[in-house]
C-alpha cells in the first residue's frame, strides 16, 4: 500500500509541476482550493464506493442518485416546502434508492453490476420524467453559499464537509465492527457467514450508505450551481469508480483503503482542473480517465498474478478440491 501511496503522490506532484509550468496561474491558492469544489462531490461518492468495492460489490448508479436527489430538493423547494425539509427529503430519497440496490443485491442475490446498471437508467429516467427537462434555480443566498461561498476568505465551504465525512468513513471502515464485517464479506463471504457476520445486512447497509452520500453530493451540487436539473453529473460514476480503483482497492474486494482513494481523487481532480484550464472539454477528458481506469486495474491484477500470493492461492485452490 505504501508503494501505491508513493506513486500516487509522485504522479500528483508531476501533474502539479506540469500544469504550473504551462500556466503559473494554476498554483494560486484560490485556484487550487476552488478545484476542491468539484472534487468534493466526487469524493463524497467515492467514500462509499470504496466501501462497496472492498465488500466485493460496485454501484454504477451513484451519479443518477445524485441527480434524482437534486430533483427532489429542487421540486420540493419550488412547491414551497422549507429548504431544510427539502434537504432531508433529498437525503431520505437517496437512502431509499440505495436500499433498492441493496435489496436486489443482498436479498435477491442479483449481480451488482447489472442491478446498478439498471437503476442507473431507472433513477436518471425518473429524474428526467418528473422534470420533463425543466430546471429549478433561484435558491436562497444562504443555501447557495454552501456551494459557492468561502470561509476564512479562501477555503470553500464544502471542503470541511468532505474532510469530516472522509474522517468518519475512515473511522467506520477501520475502527468499527461494521468496517470489519465489510472486509470480511469481501475477503471470503462463506467464511464471514460461518463466523457469524450478517452478510446480507452488511451489503444492504453499504448500498444504503452509498445512496445517502450520493444524495448529499446532490445537495452540494445544487448549491454549487444554484440549479437542480435532471442531467446533473452525467457520467460522474466513471470518476468515482476510477478514484477507488486507482487508490488501490482491487476489483475483487477484500482489501483497500480510503487513504488511497483520497490520494487518487486528488490526482484525478488536479488533472481535471489542469485540463479545464487548458480548455479541454469534459468529454475529451474521459479519454484520460478511462485510460487511467483500465491501467490501474490492469497493473494491480498483473502485480497480483505475478506475486507469490497468487501462486500460493492457486496451489491452495487445487489442494482443497
Amino acid at each position: 500500500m505504501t508503494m501505491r501511496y508513493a506513486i500516487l503522490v509522485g504522479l500528483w506532484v508531476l501533474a502539479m509541476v506540469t500544469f504550473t509550468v504551462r500556466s503559473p496561474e494554476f498554483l494560486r491558492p484560490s485556484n487550487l482550493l476552488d478545484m476542491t469544489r468539484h472534487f468534493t462531490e466526487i469524493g463524497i461518492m467515492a467514500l462509499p464506493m470504496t466501501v462497496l468495492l472492498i465488500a466485493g460489490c460496485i454501484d454504477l448508479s451513484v451519479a443518477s442518485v445524485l441527480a434524482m436527489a437534486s430533483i427532489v430538493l429542487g421540486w420540493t423547494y419550488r412547491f414551497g416546502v422549507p429548504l431544510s425539509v427539502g434537504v432531508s427529503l433529498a437525503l431520505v430519497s437517496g437512502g431509499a434508492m440505495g436500499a433498492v440496490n441493496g435489496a436486489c443485491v443482498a436479498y435477491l442475490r442479483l449481480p451488482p453490476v447489472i442491478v446498478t446498471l439498471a437503476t442507473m437508467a431507472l433513477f436518471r429516467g425518473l429524474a428526467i420524467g418528473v422534470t420533463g427537462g425543466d430546471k429549478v434555480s433561484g435558491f436562497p443566498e444562504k443555501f447557495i453559499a454552501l456551494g459557492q461561498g468561502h470561509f476564512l476568505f479562501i477555503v470553500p465551504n464544502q471542503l470541511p464537509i468532505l474532510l469530516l465525512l472522509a474522517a468518519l468513513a475512515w473511522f467506520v471502515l477501520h475502527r468499527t465492527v461494521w468496517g470489519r464485517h465489510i472486509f470480511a464479506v469481501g475477503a471470503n463471504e462463506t467464511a464471514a457467514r460461518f463466523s457469524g457476520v450478517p452478510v446480507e445486512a452488511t451489503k444492504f447497509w453499504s448500498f444504503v450508505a452509498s445512496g445517502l452520500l450520493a444524495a448529499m453530493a446532490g445537495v452540494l451540487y445544487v448549491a454549487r450551481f444554484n440549479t437542480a436539473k435532471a442531467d446533473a453529473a452525467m457520467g460522474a460514476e466513471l470518476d468515482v469508480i476510477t478514484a477507488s480503483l486507482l487508490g488501490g482497492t482491487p476489483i475483487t474486494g477484500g482489501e483497500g483503503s480510503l487513504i488511497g482513494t483520497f490520494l487518487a481523487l486528488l490526482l484525478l481532480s488536479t488533472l481535471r482542473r489542469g485540463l479545464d484550464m487548458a480548455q479541454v472539454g469534459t468529454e475529451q477528458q474521459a479519454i484520460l480517465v478511462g485510460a487511467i481506469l483500465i491501467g490501474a486495474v490492469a497493473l494491480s491484477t498483473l502485480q497480483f498474478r505475478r506475486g507469490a500470493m497468487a501462486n500460493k492461492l492457486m496451489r491452495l485452490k487445487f489442494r482443497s478440491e
Partner: protein
Amino acid sequence: MTGNVLMLRDIRKSFDGAKALKGVDLEVFGGEIHALIGENGAGKSTLIKIAGGVFPPEAGAISLDGKPVRFADPRDAQRQGIVVIHQTPTLCPHLSVTENILLGHLPTRWSIVRWREARQRAAKLLTQLGVELPLNVPVSELSAAQQQLVALARALSLQARWLILDEPTAALSRPETERLFAILRQLKSQGVGVLFVSHRLEEVLELCDRITVLRDGEKVATLPAEEAKREELIALMIGARGGGRRTSELTEKQALHPQTSRDEPILRLQKLSSKGAFTDVNLDVHAGEIVGLFGLVGAGRSELAQAIIGLRPLNKGIIRWQGKPVRFHNPQEALMAGISYLPEDRLRQGLLLPRSVRENIGLPNLRRFSRFCIVNEQAEADAAQRQVKTLRVRAATVEQPALHLSGGNQQKVALAKWLLTEPKLFILDEPTHGIDVATKAEIHRLIVDLKAQGKAILLISSELPELLALSDRIFVMRQGRIVGKFDPNTPTEQIFAAAFCGRDKEREKWDESKVPSTHPSSFTRYFSRELSLLLFIAAVAAFVGWRNPPFVTPAHWLDLLLESAPTLIAAGAMTAVIVSGNLDLSVGSLLGACAMAAGHVAKAGLPLPIAILTALALGSFVGLVNGTLTTRFFVPSVVVTLGMLGIVRGTMLVLTKGYWVTGLPENFRWLGTGKILYVPNPVWISLLTLLLLWLLLRQTEWGRDLYAIGSNGEAARLAGIPLRRRIVGVFVLCGMLTGLAALVYTARFPVVQSETGKGFELQVITAAVLGGVNIFGGAGSVVGAALGAFVVAVLHSALTFLMLPGEWDLFALGGLILLSVVLDGARQRLRR
C-alpha cells in the same frame, strides 16, 4: 494386453512440509479394474491428481506403456489417454448431453456443426455404455448419476485408455451403481484400464481385479481381489494401531475418561431431518464429554453440524439446547447461545486468507472487543497474541496475513478464533485434516484440555484412530442416518464396518428424494421466453391499437422494424458477448465513433464500399482492444469497456472537434433510405445479420465454443477450446457489428450528430436481458435478444401513441432491465 500399462514409480509429494506421498508405486494394466483404497488423508487424492496432471510429483516417474511421460496440465494427460472423472464431473451445465459428450470435437463440415451426426455419435456412445439419456436436455437438469454417465461417454469419445474414477458411487443408488459396474466391466473387456477410488469395500471386492491399499502416504500392499477379505483390507488400511486404543501421547486422557455426568445433556437432537442431507438424527452431547461422529465424506455429518448452527434449513425434528427447544436462524444466534463450529474446509469456510491473523481471530469475537461498535484493536491484538502463544502458532506477528501461514498453522488460527468465543459446545469438523503429525498431536491435547474444562465437544472425523483415542462415545453416520452408537472400546473393525459397508432399504428411499422431478418439455424450455415476449407485444398492440388505431397498421410496424434495426443488430452481437461470460459497455460510444467516421469518409466523396469498410474496421479495431485487454491483462470486461466508453467518445470528440457532419451524399444515404421489394434496406440488413448470427451461435463450432466458455470455463479449457482467442474474437465481432449498426443508423439521416449513440449500450443490454440471455453467461439466444430489442422499440412507440411524454423512456428502460433480472432470479430460485 501386455505392455499396455500406466506406471507410477516412487511418487513423492509434500505440502508445506507435510508429506502427502512418501514414494508410492502403482501400476494399472490395460484391461484391469484396479482399486485404490485407504483412509482419509492416506494420499489417494494426491496420487490421482498427479496421475491426472493437476500437479507434478516432487520426485518419481510416470510412464505409459514403458515410455516416460510428463503432464503439463490435465488436458495434456487427457491427450495422452488418461481421463479423470470426479464425483461431480466437470461439465458445462447449460449445454446439452450431446454437446457435453462431444465438447471440443463436435463433427463439423466447413466449421458448421452437423447436429444430426453429433446426435448419432452421442447416441452410439451412450448405447455402447448401455444407457439411454435424453440427448437435447441441458446436463444441469440431470441427476448426479446421469451426469456421471455423460462424463463416461465423454471419456469414451476421447478414446481414453485409462480411466480414473474418484468415488464414483458416492452419490449413486444401488441400481445406478450396478449399471455403472456393468459399464466398467465392459470397458475393461475393451482393454481400458480403470483406477477405481472408493471407500466402499464391498463394491471394491465385487468389481475390482486388484486392490492397492495406501496408508499415511505409503503403499501398504497390492493384492488380487479374489484373495482379499474385508477384514484383511480394514486391517491393512488402519495398520498396526488398529484394534485397540493406544495412541501414546493421549494416555493421560484415560484418567479423565469415564466420569461423564449422566445429567441432562447440553445438546439433544430428536429426529432431526434436513431434506437431501440427513434424516431422523438422534444424538446427545453432555458437558465435559467428547462425542465422536464417524462416517465417510458425504455421509451428512457436516450438513448436520451446519443445520444445528442455522446454516441449513431443517424439515423436522427438535434441537434441545440446555433443555429448551431452539432453532438458530444463523451462526450469530448459535454463537450467542454458546455453540461454535469449526468448519471442515479452513480455506473456503474458515479463514479470510488476505486478512491478518489478528483480524481472523477477532472476527467472531468482535462483540467482546468492541464498545458501541468501536473495535478496541489493542485488546483484540492482546487476545490474538495470547491465543497464538497458547496454541503455538508459528507466525512472525499477529499482523501477518493468514495466507502466508502453513496449513497446520492456519488450522490453529481457525481453532483459535472459535475457541476465543468460549463456547459451551464446540463442534469440530475434521480438525486435523491435512496437517502434519506434530500439530495433530497438539490439537488432540487441546481437545482433551477443553473436555477437562467441562466443555461439550462434538468431534466430526473420518479418522477412526483419532476418534477412538479421544471420544467417550462414537456415533456412526452413513447415508444421512445414524447407523450405530459405539463405546470407544469396541473393536475397530466393527465401527469401520458400520460406516463403510452394508446396504439398507432406507437408503433406496433416501436416493429417491435426490432424483430430479420430470423434465420440462423441450417446448417450454426453448420457447417460453420468446413466446412470452411475443404475447407481450401482442397485448401491447391490442391495447394501444384499441385506444389509437393507427398503431396497428402494417406501415407503422415496418417503421418500428426500421427504427429498431441498429438495436437489433447490436443486441444480437451483445448476446454473443454475454453468452461468453462478458459484457460490452462501449457499444454506445463506438456506434457514435463509427457513424462519425463513415460520415466523414462519405462526405469526402469516397465510394460507398470504402465508407462501409471504414465503419466495420474501426469497430473491429476497438473490439480487438477490448478483447485483448480483457484476456491479456486480466481486467474484467466491465471495467475495460467502461473505460473504453469514455476513451472512444473522447477521442471522437477530439478528432471531430465536436462538429457534426452535415449534407451526407445520396449514395451513402441509400443504405438507410433505399428500399428493396418495398422493404427498407436497414430492415433487410438487420434481419440478414440476425440470421447469420443465429447460424453462427447455434450452428458453428465457434459459436458453441462461446457457450461452453460462458457455461464452465474450466470444462471448456479441458476440452481444448482456445479461450483467449474466442473471447478476443467475440469482442471483435461485437465491435464490427456495432460498426454495421452505426451505418444502418446514420444513413437514414442527412447529418451525423456528435451525440450519436449516447445511452445506446443501455438499450442493447436491456434487449439482451429481456430476451432471456443469462447474464452470468452460458445461455441465451439471438432470437430472444432480437425480440427483446423489438419490445423496447414497441414500448417506446406505444408510449408516444398513448400521448405519454418521451421523457419517461429511460425510466422504462431501466425498469425493464431491473424487472427482468429480478424475475429471472426468482425463476431460478423456484426451480431449485
